[in-house]
C-alpha cells in the first residue's frame, strides 16, 4: 500500500528521486534547493539509495559530472536554483545538444543582483532556449509525481528535463503527499538505455567539431551536419508534446493522479474569461476563480504545466471561447513584457482567437501574492478592458511605482 506522509516539496522531490534509482547524483548547495541534496547525501550514505554521490565544487561541475555519467550509461540527477542554474548555463546547452535524459529539479528563486533568496521564476524562464523540457508543479504531490514522470519522458525522447517548483512556497511548505510504491515506480519506469555508449568496446569520439555541411564517414555514408543535429532536437521536442500527454495518461492509470499532461484546466467548462500561469501562482488563481464565480463571473484557469515544449495547440483549444485572457507570471523579459504573455500571444496568433491578453508581473523576489490581490487584479482588468485595451500595458501587481 502506498503511504501518505506530511512533507515539504524538497522532501517530495528527494523521495521521488530515490524511487527512480539514479546511479549518479551530483549537486551543489543553494537555497532553496539545498535540502534535496542534503537528503540525497543521507540516503546514499545510509544505503537507501545505491548511487555514487559526487560532492562537486560548483554547479557547472555538477552538471558536467552528470553529462559524462549519463553518456557512460548511468541514470542521473541534480537540483539547483537561481544563480546556480545560471552558473550551469553553458552545460544546459551541452546536455541538450548531447541528447542526454538528465533530470534536474529547479527550485525557483529570484536572480541577483541584488540578492534575493525568495521565489520567482526568472531563473528557469531565462533558460528557455537551452533545449530542456520544463515542467512546472503546483503542489508537493505534483512534485513527487512529476519527477517520476520526468525520467520516463526524458528517457523516451532523449531530452533533458527540468522539474520546476516554487522556492519556499512549495519547497519548504508541508502538505500530505501520497508516496508511490517502489514496485509500481519500477514498473512504470523501464531501465535507462543510452543512445550512445562511451565504452572501450565501441570506441568513438563523442561531440567533436562539426562542420556546417554534412560529411561522409569512412564508409562513404553521408552523416549529419550541425544543422541536422539541431533540427532533430526540435523535431523530438515536437514528439515530446505527445509523450508528455501519453506519460500522464499512463501515470494516471497506474497511480490514479492526473495532472493534465501539458496543461490543466479549472472551471473552464462555461468560462469566457481565462486566467493562466505556471506553478503555485496558477494554483492560487483557482481560489480567485472560486470567489469570482460566486458573483456569477464565468471565469476559469488554464494552468501551463509544460513551458517547453510550449503546448500551442492545447492552448488554442482551451482558449477557443476566450473573451479575455489574463496572464499572471513571476518573471519579466526586460524591455518587452512577461515572457509567458508573449508566448501565449504568439500561440494564439492566426488561430482566430482575438481575446486581449493582459500581462501581469507578480511576486518577484518572493513578494507575496494573495488571493485577494489576484481577485482585485482580475476585477480591475474586467472593468478596464471590457474587451479591448491592453496593448503594451504590463501591470506590476502589488508593486510601488512612485
Amino acid at each position, binding site marked *: 500500500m502506498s503511504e501518505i506522509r506530511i512533507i515539504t516539496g524538497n522532501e517530495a522531490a528527494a523521495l521521488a528521486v530515490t524511487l527512480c534509482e539514479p*546511479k549518479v547524483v551530483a549537486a551543489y548547495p543553494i537555497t532553496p534547493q539545498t535540502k534535496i541534496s542534503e537528503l540525497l547525501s543521507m540516503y546514499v550514505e545510509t544505503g537507501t539509495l545505491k548511487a555514487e554521490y559526487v560532492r562537486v565544487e560548483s554547479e557547472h*561541475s555538477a552538471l558536467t559530472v552528470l553529462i*559524462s*555519467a*549519463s553518456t*557512460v550509461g548511468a541514470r542521473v540527477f541534480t537540483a539547483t536554483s537561481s544563480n546556480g542554474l545560471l552558473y550551469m548555463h553553458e552545460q544546459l546547452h551541452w546536455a541538450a545538444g548531447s541528447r542526454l535524459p538528465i533530470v534536474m529539479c529547479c527550485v525557483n528563486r529570484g536572480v541577483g543582483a541584488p540578492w534575493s533568496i525568495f521565489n520567482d521564476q526568472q531563473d528557469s524562464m531565462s533558460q528557455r532556449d537551452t533545449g530542456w523540457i520544463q515542467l512546472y508543479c503546483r503542489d508537493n504531490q505534483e512534485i513527487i509525481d512529476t519527477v517520476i514522470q520526468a525520467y520516463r519522458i526524458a528517457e523516451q525522447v532523449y531530452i533533458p528535463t527540468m522539474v520546476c517548483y516554487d522556492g519556499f512556497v512549495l519547497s519548504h511548505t508541508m502538505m500530505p503527499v501520497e508516496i508511490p510504491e517502489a514496485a509500481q515506480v519500477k514498473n512504470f519506469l523501464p531501465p535507462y538505455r543510452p543512445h550512445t555508449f562511451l565504452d572501450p568496446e565501441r570506441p568513438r*569520439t563523442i561531440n567533436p*567539431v562539426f*562542420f556546417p555541411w554534412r560529411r561522409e564517414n569512412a564508409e562513404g555514408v553521408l552523416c549529419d551536419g550541425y544543422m541536422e543535429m539541431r533540427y532533430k532536437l526540435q523535431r523530438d521536442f515536437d514528439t515530446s508534446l505527445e509523450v508528455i500527454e501519453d506519460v500522464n495518461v499512463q501515470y494516471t492509470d497506474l497511480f490514479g493522479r492526473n495532472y493534465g499532461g501539458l496543461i490543466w484546466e479549472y472551471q473552464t467548462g462555461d468560462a469566457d474569461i481565462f486566467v493562466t500561469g505556471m506553478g503555485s501562482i496558477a494554483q492560487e488563481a483557482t481560489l480567485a476563480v472560486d470567489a469570482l464565480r460566486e458573483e456569477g463571473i464565468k471565469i476559469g484557469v488554464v494552468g501551463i504545466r509544460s513551458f517547453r515544449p510550449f503546448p500551442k495547440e492545447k492552448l488554442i483549444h482551451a482558449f477557443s471561447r476566450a473573451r479575455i485572457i489574463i496572464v499572471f507570471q513571476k518573471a519579466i523579459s526586460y524591455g518587452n513584457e512577461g515572457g509567458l504573455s508573449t508566448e501565449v500571444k504568439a500561440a494564439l496568433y492566426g488561430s482566430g482567437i482575438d481575446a486581449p491578453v493582459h500581462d501581469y508581473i507578480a511576486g518577484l523576489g518572493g513578494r507575496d501574492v494573495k488571493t485577494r490581490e489576484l481577485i482585485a487584479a482580475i476585477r480591475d482588468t474586467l472593468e478596464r478592458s471590457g474587451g479591448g485595451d491592453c496593448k503594451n500595458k504590463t501591470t506590476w501587481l502589488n508593486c510601488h511605482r512612485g
Partner: protein
Amino acid sequence: MHENLFKINEKEYILPGSRACQGCGLSIAYRYILKALRENTIVAIPPSCLCVLHGLYPNTSVTVPALNITFAGNAASASGIVAALTALNRPDITVLALSGDGGTYDIGIQSLSGAAERNTDFIFACYDNEAYMNTGTQRSGATPMGAVTTTTPVLTKKDHKKDFIRIMEAHNIPYIATVSPAYPIDLYEKFVKAKRIKGTRYIQIDTPCPPGWGYPAKDTVKIGKLAVETGIFPLLEIEDGKLRLTGRSNTLSVKGKRMPIIHYVERQMRFRKMSIEQLNQLQSWVDKRWNDFTNRADN
C-alpha cells in the same frame, strides 16, 4: 623497472590523418600516452588542439573512446565518467582527462582542484604548450615571462608562469610527474606507472609547438631536450610527497652542467622581444626552481 624502446607497446592508437600540425609535440606525447594506457581507456577532452587532433565529425583518427566537454569542466567530466563506471561496476577502465594549459592552469583549475581534492580515481594530464594555441596563441597562466603572444604582442608577457606542480602538490595526491615528448621512454614509463596507481594522478607534459613557439617543425625534439638541458623543465616524479628527478634531469643534478637559458630562448621566435632584464629574471626563476627541486630530491 626500466623499459627500453623495444619494450614499448607496438600497437598504434592514433591512425594516420590526425589534424595536428606538422611537428606537434602533443601528437608525439599522445601517441606514447595511449601506448602506455592501452585500449581500456576513456579520454576526456576540452576545447583545445587535442579536440582538433581528434578530427572532424564523422571521422576520427583516434581509436580509444573520447568525450568532448566544455572548456572549464574536463576534470568534472572525468569525475562523471569515473562515477558512472563505479556505479555500473566497471572498475577496469582507465580514465584520462587530457587538457591544454588553458584548460588546466586557467579556466579548468576549479574543476581540477575539486576532482583532486576528492582524490577522484583518474589521470589528469596537462599538455602544456604555454598558450591558448587553438584560438591563435594568446597568453595563458602558463606562458613564460618574455614571450610574445597575440595578446602580449608588443610588451611580451610580464609575469612568470604559475608553478602548477606546487599547486597540485598542495592537493596531496598520490602521484605527480612531469614528462616531455623529447624523452618518450621516460614518458611511457611514467604513464605505465600512473595507470597502476589509484586516486588522482597529475602529469604535466612539456609540449613544444612549432607555430606557437616559432621554430621549424623538425626541431620539436631538439627544443624539448633544450628545455630539460637548461632546467626550465625538469623531469621529475613526486610520490606520496617524495620528489625524485628522473632521466636526464637526474643525471644533470648529479654530475652534468645545466645550459644557460639563452640557448633555449634564442631558438624560439616567441622570445624575440625579450629584454636582457627579462632574460635574467627568467634565468633566476629557473635557477631557484631547479635548486628547490634538487635540494628536495630523494634519488
